[in-house]
Every structure is written in C-alpha cells, then in structure tokens.
C-alpha cells in the first residue's frame, strides 16, 4: 500500500543576504492513508516551512536542495501551476492557524464554501449550496442556512475555524495539513475543535499532518508524533509512547517542560500580611463622546487581594478582563473602585505616586514590543534606576540576576531572542526592587522549554527578594504548578477565587470545571 504522503530526504535552504541558511535537514516522513501524524517543534524549527513546501507555496528565496515530496503517486515538486490548482484543496487540504485571516472578510461564508465545492467537486451551484449547508451542520454549527449568508466578522473565531474545517473536509482530500489550528483560539473553543477533528477523522478516514508546538495536545490527536528540532527530525514514535518513554534528549527536554498541575514548583506558603487589596474595580475604555455613550466596563466590580510574597494566578479566556485588571493595578487604564496598598488608598491613576509605581511593576506579554527597539539594553535598564534611585553600575548585577551575561548591556533588543528579551523586561521590573510584580501572560508567546526557564527564573527571583506576583495566564496547568491562589475570570467577572489545593474539590464553579476539562493534560 502506498503512503498517502511521503517526504524523502528533503532539505530546504533559504537564501538570505548572509548566504543560504538550511532550515530543513534531510527530513523523511510517511503518512499512511487514514493516519494522523503530529509534527512537534519549537518556533523556528521549520515545521511551517515543511507545510508550505508541501502546499508548493514557498517564498521566493527558498531553494529545495534535495529530496522528494510525494502525495500518493504524484510528485509534488514536478507540478506546474495549472496542475497545482487541481491538487490544492482537492487532494491536499490545509487549515491555517488564524481563522480570522483565512476567510475573506468581504465575501459571505456561503460563497466561500460553495466556491471551493464548485471548483473541486464539479458541483452545480444549487447542489453546492445544499452540500455546504449539510457540511456546516455536520461541524456542529447552529442554523447553517443563516451562517451561509453571514460575513466572517459576524461569527466567532471558533465558528470561523469550523467553517474552514468544513470546507477542507468537504472537498474530500486525501491529506489535510493542520498548521496549529487551535493556537489562536481559546482553551475551551480549541478543545471543542479537537473533538470535532477526532469525530470527522473517524468518519472520513482522512490522513492528516497536524503541526503544533504543544506536545501535550499533539499526543491527544495524533497516532504518531514526529519531533522536529532546528530543522532536523530527532524522533518519531507512536503518540502513546513518546510521552512515557522519550528516547532522544531533545524530546525528553520537551516532555519535561510541559507543565503538569500535579507537579508543584512552589512549596512555601505566603505570609498573612495583605499587601494589596483591590475592591469594586471597574475598568473603562474610551470616554463617552458627544453623541455616543461610553462602552460597557471591561470588568464588573472585581475585588481581589494579594498577600506579601504570594503568587496569585488569574486565568480566563481572551476578553475575560484579566489584562484589564493588570492595567488598572498599574494605572494604565481608567478605573473606578478602590485599591489600598501599604496604608495608602488609591482611587485612580492620578493617585499613584512614585512609591506605588516603584512597588508595583508590570511585565508585558510580547517581548518584542515591551523593549524600545531604539534603546540599548543598558539604557532600558538605566531608566528605573534613575527614576527610583539606584546607581548605573548596578546594571551588570541586574543582568546577572536574570542569568544574562553583562556583555548584553551594549546590545540592541533585536539582537536578542524572545526569551532573552523577556528576561530583560523582568530585569527592568526588578530594578525598582518592587513588592509586587504583575506578569501579564508573559510566557504565552514563548516555546514550552523557554517558558519553563522563565518560570524557574521568576521563582528564583521570588526566593531571593520575597516579591509577590500576580500571574495572568490562560494556561491552567501552568498556573496550578506555581500559584497559591487562583482567580478564574469570565466576561469581566471573577467566577472563582480559590486556594490551589481546592481545585480538585467539588465546590468549584461549573466554568472552572469546564476550563479544567479543556486544558490538555499530558497523556501517560
């Protein structure tokens, strides 16, 4: 039996101004008909390049050095443009990462599906319409006939991804490439998409290449898992085995970095003194205009307190108001309510004096945008020292504190990797010797292994300085490893605020339970 998709000894270069850079080294993979192969790797490991090579949509500076790509018995590399259009979609489907950009915003959903069906299955428009409605119903969308007439901005991200998946499956391809299809979605929505994928797969028996950076997730959907590291294939094994018995050291590192809630990293308990109390916090964006009312508040009268040395976790989906809380506590957003900190009461950003600003620091989500690209590292670190008292010779010590060599002081932010930039941002926050550091999704854009290093660093800094943390994240498994208490937020409300031990108990909110069920717990 021939493989549905086979990649043999494939190597790919990108030609840059500094000469050719090899991104894929001698890759050999096979997917049998009906099999799902998971491809796992960190960012920059070349997994997306492989997907684009299979779709024959490589950038102009890509050079295929050797190897072959075969879809069934078709040699993909030999196809001309006209033959390619007959392969793409019809025999080789693709589902992209971000559903909001993979649908055309100016066309109704219906016409985007029927276009694919008419082209690839030679249907008449009326039959295509009927089939499209059937397909949309099959991916569990309510009222498919109404969805057909809507535009992409009128449906949610999860619904968009269902539409894309319905289109991909509707053309009955031999193989579908999934490029991180749930990364851009919320945890619960993503979990539902995975359930849908498992069901459709069983019904249609399609083969798939499932690309992701999340090893725990891939082991749940794939039959076999291949691990890619810097363009080299380091290990291939059945999904159930790779977690239990990773053979290669890189795979072992990946497995070790996956957060497991039962593996606690923090063992002490915080003091009894309350450091910060926030009550009735409502965050407002935008002022009422002359002719329009102010938009509704992003959070609904939220209260929380942080004890000295405590790690308080805040979890929730995007739009749940957790980042708004971070902005309120640092005076970046207008809010009403009361914050009391260190015997002072604060009613708005104007009440925040230099002492408060020094004691409460924030680290942002995106390391690329949190450092000014036109400032060197030493200038970035010198600002808090100048503002809050401190001497410039402290900079090497600050860098050393976040495990960076002192030679980095003279570098520009773009010369650093994402993890290193996040370390500089942490050093900048700790330069003020704060009592409370707010971490707003600081590990979300990082790879799992880098995330583990950053967490380790934060815990080491906490042991050194006794700083309290408010740790905002959407990763429930991660926060259950480190937090003392966790607040669960949904649509601007705090539905639960519990000590971490109580998460296994019965009295948790139904939403929290749903969130726990949706967080992929590693197999094995």
């Amino acid at each position: 039996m021939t493989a549905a998709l086979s990649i043999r000894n494939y190597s790919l270069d990108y030609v840059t101004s500094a000469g050719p850079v090899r991104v894929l080294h001698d890759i050999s993979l096979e997917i049998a008909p009906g099999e799902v192969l998971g491809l796992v790797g960190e960012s920059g490991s070349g997994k997306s390049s492989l997907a684009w090579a299979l779709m024959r949509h490589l950038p102009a500076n890509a050079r295929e050095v050797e190897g072959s790509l075969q879809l069934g018995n078709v040699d993909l590399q030999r196809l001309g443009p006209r033959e390619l259009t007959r392969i793409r979609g019809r025999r080789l489907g693709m589902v992209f990462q971000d559903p909001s950009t993979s649908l055309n915003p100016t066309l109704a959903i219906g016409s985007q599906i029927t276009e694919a069906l008419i082209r690839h299955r030679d249907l008449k428009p009326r039959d295509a319409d009927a089939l499209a409605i059937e397909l949309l119903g099959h991916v569990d969308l309510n009222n498919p006939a109404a969805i057909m007439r809507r535009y992409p901005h009128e449906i949610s991200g999860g619904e968009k991804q269902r539409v894309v998946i319905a289109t991909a499956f509707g053309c009955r391809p031999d193989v579908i490439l999934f490029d991180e299809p749930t990364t851009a979605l919320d945890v619960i929505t993503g979990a539902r998409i995975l359930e849908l994928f498992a069901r459709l797969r069983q019904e249609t028996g399609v083969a798939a290449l499932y690309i992701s950076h999340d090893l725990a997730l891939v082991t749940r959907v794939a039959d076999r898992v291949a691990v890619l590291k810097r363009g080299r294939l380091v290990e291939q094994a059945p999904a159930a085995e790779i977690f239990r018995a990773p053979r290669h050291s890189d795979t072992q590192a990946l497995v070790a970095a996956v957060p497991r809630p039962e593996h606690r990293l923090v063992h002490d308990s915080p003091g009894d003194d309350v450091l910060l109390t926030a009550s009735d916090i409502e965050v407002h964006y935008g002022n009422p205009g002359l002719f329009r009312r102010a938009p509704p508040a992003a959070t609904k009268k939220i209260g929380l307190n942080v004890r000295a040395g405590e790690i308080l976790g805040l979890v929730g989906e995007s739009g749940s108001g957790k980042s708004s809380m971070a902005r309120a506590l640092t005076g970046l957003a207008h809010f009403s309510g009361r914050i009391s900190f260190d015997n002072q009461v604060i009613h708005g950003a104007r009440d925040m004096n230099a002492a408060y600003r020094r004691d409460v620091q924030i680290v942002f989500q995106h390391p690329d945008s949190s450092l000014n690209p036109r400032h060197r590292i030493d200038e970035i670190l010198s600002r808090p020292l100048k503002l809050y008292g401190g001497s410039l010779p402290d900079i090497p010590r600050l860098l050393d504190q976040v495990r960076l060599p002192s030679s980095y002081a003279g570098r520009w932010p773009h010369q650093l990797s994402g993890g290193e930039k996040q370390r500089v941002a942490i050093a900048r926050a700790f330069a003020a010797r704060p009592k409370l550091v707010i971490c707003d999704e600081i590990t979300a854009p990082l790879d799992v292994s880098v995330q583990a290093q950053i967490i380790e660093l934060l815990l080491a800094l906490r042991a050194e300085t006794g700083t309290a943390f408010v740790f905002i994240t959407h990763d429930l498994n991660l926060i259950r490893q480190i937090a003392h208490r966790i607040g669960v937020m949904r649509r601007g409300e705090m539905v639960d605020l519990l000590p971490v031990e109580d998460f296994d108990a019965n009295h948790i909110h139904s939403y929290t339970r749903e969130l726990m069920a949706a967080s992929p717990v590693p197999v094995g």
Partner: protein
Amino acid sequence: MTELLTRLIRKPQGFVGLSLLALVALACLFGPALAPYAPEKINFLGRFRAPGWQNWLGADQFGRDIFSRLMVGARSTVPMALIATFAGSAVGAIIGVGSAYFGGRADEAIMRTNDAVMAIPGLLMALLLVSTLGNGAGNAAIAIAIAFAPGMARVTRSVALNVRNQDYVKAAIARGEGALWIIFREMLPNVMAPIVIESTIRVSFAVMLFATLSFLGVGAQPPASEWGLMVADARQYMYQAPWALIAPSVAIAVAAIAFNLIGDGLRDALNPKDER
C-alpha cells in the same frame, strides 16, 4: 548607516536620485568657485547670447551668464528648501507625536485645528504668510515651514498611534516617566523612518514652492540668482531667449526629482521586510 547607503544605491531610483543629488550638492558647495563668471556681471554686448562656447547655457537680458547664475543660485534655493522642510517636519513631527501621546480631547483639539490649517492650500498659505511677514527669502522659508507642518503632523500621528500602543510606551507610563521623555525618547525615535521618507519627498515640493514664491515676487528679491526668480525674470523674453527660461526650470526639476527619487529609494531601503 553605510548599510543603509548600500541598500539605497542598489535600488535604481536610489542610485539615480543620489547621483542627481550629488550634482546639486556640488553646485551648492563649490558653485561660486566653479562658475566661469561673476553672477551679477553685466555684459551689454552679450545680451540674449545663445548657448555657445562663451556662455555655456546662454546669457540673459543683461548679458549675465546663466550657467554662473545657476551655480551660484543653487546656494540660495536648495539649502533654503532644506531648512524650510526640516523646520516644518520637526514642528509637525512633535505636534503629531504629542497629539498621539496625549490622546482623547487634547488629540481631538490638536488634530481638528490641524485639519483647519490643512484645508488652506499650501501655496495660498505660504503667500498669505509672506504677505503678512513681508517679502524676502527668510520669510518665504518660514512660510513654507508653517505650510508643511500640518501635513507632517498628520502623517506622524498615524504612525505614532501605533507606537503609542506598544508595550514599551505603556511600561514607561507605568513606571511614571514624564511626558517629555516619553514623547522625545520613547516615541519619536520609533516614528523617524516615515518622517525621514516623507520629508525627503517634501524637500522637492519645497524647492518648487520656494521657486514659485520667488517667481511671484514675494520670495528672493532681484538681483539674487534664485532659480525661481530667474524663471520669473526670463518670462518676458521667452520668445527671444528661451534658454534663459529653460535652464533654471530644468535645474528646479532636477533638484525636485533628485529628492523625490531618494525619498522613494529610502522608503524601500528603510523597510526591514525587504531584507533579502
């Protein structure tokens, strides 16, 4: 910087622009030394002399050598245009970044005032200002700077609004930095690329606007050899001595095209996405 220059030269428009600009710069720096005659030397025997070995680009109604006048006139045209653009861009950029930083009502107030000023055509605005301030090259430069500032403010604000939402600006606000530090050190350096491109292209408009003002008699005053003024002077003798009109017109066009091409080239060279 050298890397930017090589990237600029690799683009055809950058290369042509730079070569033309080198010619203009040569005239500005060494014009008086290179000119074969004094620019105001009158020669009544040589009135309206056609281009030839005595006067390379011909002579005007007073027998003054046009080539010499062009070489010397470069100094009063191009640097003035540069100064006017630089001043206008600087003022506009600061207004734009400040408006984006403060946001809300302050932003509305600044930008609506800006729109009101922009509603007046540039030339009309410059004319209005010069007639208020009085004739003269310096006042013309001020007028051009003021006429340019609102446009620059608008361009800069749109870029600065993006920068305003970057986390490093939020970090600066959260740590309690002052408005001046945030505007000048955090935001302004990050909006420089579009400002540089926009103002390079605007230099060409300034050269033309400056020449236009002189042509209308409110910019440089006779007997200065400013290019626009030369065109104005030659206009009455257009049929007798077309060269007296053509030569300065071509000079204005060359300077304008040079800056325009460099602006185009810079836009490509400063775009980091194009790094191949």
